[in-house]
C-alpha cells in the first residue's frame, strides 16, 4: 500500500543498542533515509514540494508543524494527535500518529531506556500528577512522556496530587513496598525540581531511594534559576539518595527515539536516530565525517529519527544549540556519536516600525 511497508523495522530493532560504530551507522542511515524519504515524498504533498524545491532529505524546521498540517497517512488512519506544550496564546505543533508509528515509538523508548535500566520492569514513581494523562483526547508532550514511560514500569505511582502538591504519604508507601528492589523514577526536569525536590527540602524530608531517575524536557527554567545539570544531580542525590540520574534530550516531534545521558554525562545517539550540527549562519551541515572534526563545533541540532512514517518528521531542524563531543569513544563504552545540548537559540532583536507593544 505505502512505501512504509518496504521498511522492515524488525531488522532495525534487532540491532543491539549503542553497538554500531559510526562508519557502520552511516551506511545504515543512508539506506533507511532513502526509503523513508521516498515514502514521505509519495504520501505527503507538502513534503514532496519541499523535496522538489530543495532537493532530497530537507530538514523540516520544527516550527512547520505549528503552521501546517503535515501527514503521510490518510486522515482516517490517525489514532493520536500529539501537541507540543506551547505556552498560552502560541500556536502548538500537531504530530499525527497512526497505530504503527505510535507502537514503534513505544518500542523504541523501551529499548533505549532498558539499555540504561536493565531489561526487567521496575516499579515506577512518576513525579507528576495523574491528572495530566486523564484527558486521553489531548496528548500533550508532557502527557505523552508520562504515558510512554508508564508502560515501562510496574506499580505506577504518582508522586503529586491533582494540584501538583507532593503526596508524601504515597511516595513513602511506594518506597516501603519496594524497599528490597531498585525502582525507577520519571518526570520532567523542572517539575521534579519545583514540586518534588523543593517540596521535600521545605519539609526537611530526606529519602533513601535505591533507584534510577530519568528526566527530560529541557533546562530553560532551571538555567534561569542558575541550576546546572551537575548541581541538579547533587541536590537530587542529597535529598533522595538517588545516585543514578539520567537526563534525556528529546522532542514531541520525534517521540521515542530519545537521546539518553550516560554515566559520563554525555547524550548518546542510538541506532534509531542521528544528530548533525548545522552552522547557524548558513544552515550548512558540518558534514566532515572525520571523527576529530565532527567534535568541537557548536551549532543548531539537526535531528534524525528513523521512526516516523505517519508524518514527515524524520529529519528536523531544531532551534537548540549543541555540539558533538565525540564519536565511538565515550568512556561509558557506548558506540556512536555523543553530544551536549546548550539550550535554545537566543531570540533575535529585530528592528522595524511595527509593534509598539512588546512581543513574546
Amino acid at each position, binding site marked *: 500500500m505505502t512505501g512504509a511497508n518496504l521498511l522492515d523495522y524488525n531488522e532495525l530493532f534487532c540491532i543491539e543498542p549503542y553497538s554500531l560504530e559510526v562508519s557502520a551507522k552511516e551506511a545504515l542511515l543512508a539506506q533507511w533515509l532513502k526509503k523513508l524519504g521516498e515514502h514521505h515524498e509519495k504520501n505527503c504533498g507538502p513534503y514532496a514540494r*519541499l523535496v522538489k524545491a530543495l532537493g532530497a532529505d530537507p530538514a523540516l524546521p520544527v516550527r512547520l508543524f505549528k503552521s501546517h498540517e503535515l501527514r503521510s497517512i490518510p486522515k482516517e488512519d490517525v489514532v493520536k494527535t500529539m501537541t507540543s506544550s506551547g505556552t498560552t496564546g502560541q500556536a502548538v505543533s500537531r504530530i499525527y500518529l497512526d497505530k504503527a508509528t505510535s507502537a514503534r515509538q513505544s518500542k523504541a523508548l523501551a529499548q533505549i531506556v532498558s539499555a540504561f535500566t536493565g531489561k526487567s520492569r521496575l516499579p515506577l514513581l512518576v513525579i507528576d500528577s495523574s491528572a495530566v494523562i486523564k484527558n486521553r483526547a489531548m496528548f500533550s508532550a508532557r502527557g505523552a512522556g508520562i504515558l510512554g514511560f508508564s508502560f515501562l514500569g510496574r506499580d505506577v505511582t504518582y508522586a503529586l496530587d491533582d494540584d501538583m502538591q507532593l503526596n508524601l504519604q504515597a511516595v513513602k508507601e511506594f518506597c516501603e513496598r519496594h524497599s528490597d528492589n531498585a525502582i525507577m523514577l520519571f518526570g520532567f526536569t523542572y517539575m521534579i525540581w519545583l514540586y518534588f525536590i523543593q517540596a521535600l527540602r521545605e519539609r526537611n524530608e530526606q529519602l533513601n531511594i535505591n533507584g534510577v531517575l530519568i528526566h527530560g524536557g529541557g533546562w530553560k527554567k532551571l538555567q534561569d534559576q542558575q541550576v546546572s545539570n551537575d548541581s541538579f544531580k547533587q541536590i537530587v542525590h542529597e535529598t533522595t539518595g538517588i545516585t543514578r540520574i539520567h537526563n534525556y534530550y528529546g522532542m514531541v516531534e520525534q517521540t521515542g527515539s530519545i537521546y539518553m545521558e550516560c554515566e559520563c554525562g554525555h547524550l548518546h545517539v542510538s541506532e534509531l536516530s542521528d544528530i548533525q550540527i548545522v552552522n547557524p549562519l548558513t544552515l550548512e551541515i558540518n558534514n566532515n565525517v572525520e571523527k576529530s572534526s565532527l567534535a568541537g563545533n557548536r551549532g543548531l541540532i539537526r535531528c534524525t529519527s528513523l521512526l516516523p512514517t505517519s508524518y514527515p518528521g524524520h529529519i528536523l531542524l531544531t532551534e537548540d544549540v549543541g555540539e558533538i563531543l565525540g564519536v565511538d569513544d565515550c568512556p561509558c563504552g557506548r558506540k556512536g556519536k555523543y553530544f551536549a545540548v546548550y539550550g535554545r537559540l537566543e531570540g533575535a532583536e529585530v528592528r522595524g516600525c*511595527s509593534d509598539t507593544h512588546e512581543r513574546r
Partner: protein
Amino acid sequence: MSADNVANNDVNNVENNIENNIENNVENNLMSFKLPQDIGIKVIGGSTLLARKALLPYSDEAINFLNELSATLLRDIDARQFADVIAFAYWCRGAHLKSLRDEWQATQPTQQMQSAKATGQMQARIGRGLVLHIAPGNVPINFAFSWVFALLAGNSSIVRLPSREFAQVTWLLDKIDKVLLNHAKIKERSCFVRYATDSNVSAILSLACNARIIWGGDRTVAALSLLPKQPRCVDVVFPDRYSIALLDATAVANSTDEQLKRLAQGFYNDTYLMDQNACSSPHMLFWYTTSDDASMLAKAKAGFWQAVKAYASQHYNLQAQVVVDKYVHLCEDIIDGHVKAPKNETLSFDALMQVNELVVLPNSLTELRGLGGYFYQHEIRDIAKLAPFITESYQTLVYYGIDKLALQQFVVENGLSGIDRIVPFGQALDIDIVWDGYDLVSMLSRIVDIR
C-alpha cells in the same frame, strides 16, 4: 503585555479615574494641562505642565528652537555614533524648516490673517492644541520626528517613548532638555513619558487631547481606537503597510559598477537597515522590461543582487535566529506553492539574501513579506498590470530607471486606493512631514475661516 489589555480595562473605572484626576487638578483649565500624577506615568523629559494654547504652523518659536537643537546635535562628537540622530538633526536645520514653511505657505489660500481685508474671504491655520503620541517600539528616533511634526503644526505634545531604553533615545532626550531651557514656549509644549501598556494611562490621556498620533501597526491602532476620546479629537494612525520596488531592467543592465553599488547601498538602507520590518521597506521587486532579450534581464538581476549581497555581507549583522526564521519562511512559501525551483533545478537557501522568483503572482501580494533579507521578484511587461493588486495597504513604491511622474499618473489616473509615496531607491525610510499619504501639518492644525 498585549495591546488588548489597554482596551479591556473597565471603562467606568477609567472614567472615574479621569474625573478624579481632572477635578483634583486646579491647574487643568482651558489654557493648560497638568500631567496627572500617581497613575504610573514616568516623565523622562520636557515639562509636566503643558500649554493648551496653540501656535501657528511653522512658528518662528518652533523653527528657532529646532534650529538650535539641530546645531547642538551636529556639533556634538558623541552624536556621530547614532546615524539616526544625525539624520534627525539634519532634518531639523533651520534652513530646511524654512524651505518647508515656504513650500507649505505657497499652497495655503493666504499667508497672513491681515491680508483678509483684501478679498474678504480668507483662511488662517492654527494648531489643534494637545497631541498624544504613541511612538513605535522598535524605531528609536521616530518619537522625535513625531513630536517635531506636531510642534511645527503648532501643538503641544505628550510623547509616549518606546519602552525599550535605546541608548540614542536617552542621549537625545538629554540634549533636548538642555536646549529647552532657553525656549520656555517650546518647553511648555513638550513632554516625554513612559508608562506600562497595560495601564489606564493611554485612556486618561486620550480623553484630554485634541489629536492622537498612533504608530506601531495594526494591533496598536486597534487597541487605541477603542479608547474614548473627545468628539473633535483627530487620530492620525499608522497601521501596517506594504511596500514594493520597481526597476527598469534595461536601466539596471546598463548601469556602471559604481551606479550598481550606489543602487545596492540605497536598497540596503531601504530594507536590511530595519530588518525589512519598516512599513516602507519593499518586500517585492518588479522588474519592468518590454524587451525579449532574456540575457539582458538575467544580467540586470544578477548585477543588482550581486551588488546588494556584497554590500549586505559587509554591513548586515546576520543573527542566527533571523537565519532560521528565513528558512522557516522559505519552507512555508514552498509548501504554500508561492515559491518553486526552476525546472530540473533545486533552490539553495541563501542565509544572507534569499531571493524568490515568483512565476505566478498570488491574489494578495501583501502576504508575501520578508524579514532580514528575504525578497520576492517578478517580471512585468506592463506597469498597468499592477493596478489590480494595489490595495489600501500599499504605502511606498521605490523606483529605479522609471519616470516618477508616469508612476504618479498611474496611481492617480487608475484611482488606486494605495501607494502614497513614490521615491527613488535609498529613500524608502526617509520620514517626512508628508507621510503615509497625510500632510501632518495640515492634519494637526485647523482652519479659521472668515467670510
